[in-house]
């Protein structure tokens, strides 16, 4: 059924056992984002090491899509340079806006390709992007702060 394209097993796994879901103290930057239409919230701590994303940790409430997507995002981003991270982020954003026409580049997106099905459910795209947008915001704030 169509629903299975949305709720892939890897998503439900991340939802049940989210990665890096515990705020690590003394971040370079902390941001708080909400999804005003459903009330979901996320707090994200970013630790930078020079140009390197040293750590991303988070806490928050949200649906399986937003929780899983954030979990996958942290796994992907940690250890990347800002430039690499933005490349991944753009790739993911493009996938989300593809209305089901893209399947996603697994080399770049890894587990995040499991979220490809979200792009067919317009109301859920914001859920999938919540953590990513928080990350983007944190990075650009930390860059500005330099």
């Amino acid at each position, binding site marked *: 059924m169509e*629903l299975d394209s949305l709720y892939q097993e890897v998503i439900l796994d991340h939802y049940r056992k989210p990665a890096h879901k515990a705020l690590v103290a003394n971040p370079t930057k902390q941001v708080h984002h909400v999804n005003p239409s459903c009330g979901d919230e996320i707090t994200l701590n970013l630790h930078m090491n020079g140009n390197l994303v040293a750590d991303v940790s988070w806490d928050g409430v949200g649906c399986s899509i937003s929780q899983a997507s954030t979990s996958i995002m942290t796994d992907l981003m940690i250890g990347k340079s800002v430039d690499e991270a933005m490349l991944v982020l753009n790739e993911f954003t493009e996938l989300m806006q593809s209305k089901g026409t893209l399947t996603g580049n697994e080399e770049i997106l890894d587990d995040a390709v499991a979220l490809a099905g979200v792009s067919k459910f317009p109301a859920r795209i914001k859920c999938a992007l919540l953590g990513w947008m928080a990350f983007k915001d944190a990075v650009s704030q930390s860059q500005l702060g330099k």
Partner: protein
Amino acid sequence: MFNSPLDGAEIRKDFPIFAKTMRGGGRLVYLDSGATSQKPRSVLDAERYFYENHNAAVHRGSHLLAEEASEAYEGARAIVAGFLSANIDEIIFTKSATEGINLIAYSFGNSAPSSQFALKPGDRIVVSEMEHHANLIPWQQLAKRTGAELVWFPITLEGRLDTSALDSLINERAKVVAITHQSNVLGTINPLTQIVDRAHAVGSVVVLDACQSVPHFGIDVKTLGVDFLVFSGHKALGPTGIGVLWGRADLLEEMEPFLTGGSMIESVTMSDATWASVPRKFEAGVPNMAGAVGLGAALTYLDKLGMDNVEAHERALTEYALKKFTELNGVTIIGPKDSAMRGSVLSFTIDGIHPHDAGQVLDQYGIAVRTGHHCAWPLMRKFGIAGTTRASFYIYNDSADIDALIDGIAATQKYFKV
């Protein structure tokens, strides 16, 4: 077990959208009338007939179309007045309930300091913790602009208004009491008599948010005793973009206008203007004529069903649903669990499943519910939850729809293995 004077399946035949095939291939089980209602053919026909036969700017021309358009528009006003047992001149067309409440708040804010409507530091605006953002934020803003104090009725754990501190909340400084007739989240119907009596005793006006009541049971503004009432057409079978503000004539006459522009004036010079009488004073610009006409047709449709029958039908649906819900495990109703003083809005949470995910699975079965904070975020915080899943019933629903919901919830639990 299910006993109603109305037959939802029969009524659905008047609503073209129910012919639609949904995502999972099934029929539409529409349980989101609390957000917006579907529209019967007669409403769509009335709008179209207006455009195809009478369309012109009202009150602004001597030609035949302008005359007919004015008659259609004023005819709609008469229908609304009749529906609420109000006087015609007390009916103001707005674009929505939201605009109606903002109209009152801004009009009060525009008042001269000597006016009965002016607010000043120390004055009180009283709301409740179960208000929709539309009946909360305009008052927050008015309070900020005038220095008045915003206070609120708390909510009991059962989702009822806690009126134990009524007299100290609505004290002598109260100027406005703004309260919802029925909560769009909890289904709770609020006890108005004591609130109205107390408010009037201290010289405060009462603004009633009737978005969730006018479409669902008979309303007589004179009996209610409130001073202002707002509702949205789109939740009452009517078109989008049309709402109603009813107000007591003597108050409306004294109030400052809100939107200014054409058709609301008596006389205009470059530096000054005087206002037309009510209701024109509050209807600046070319109004939503087709919307008003459509709303007239909507209320006529409801009138034909009979509001007593509508109420009985929704009570039967609610009782049936409340009973069925007790068969479910891991599901918690947020709001009163009995049908006394309660409308047909049913919010719930499912253990281990976020509302958004629940809504998604239900959608696969053609079941349309709403999920999230329902524009009542403070209420969610009060209950310590991020959101609920909400089913809301209307005339075109029947017990089969509720059975589908119950099965859908069970299927959701199975899908997410909780």
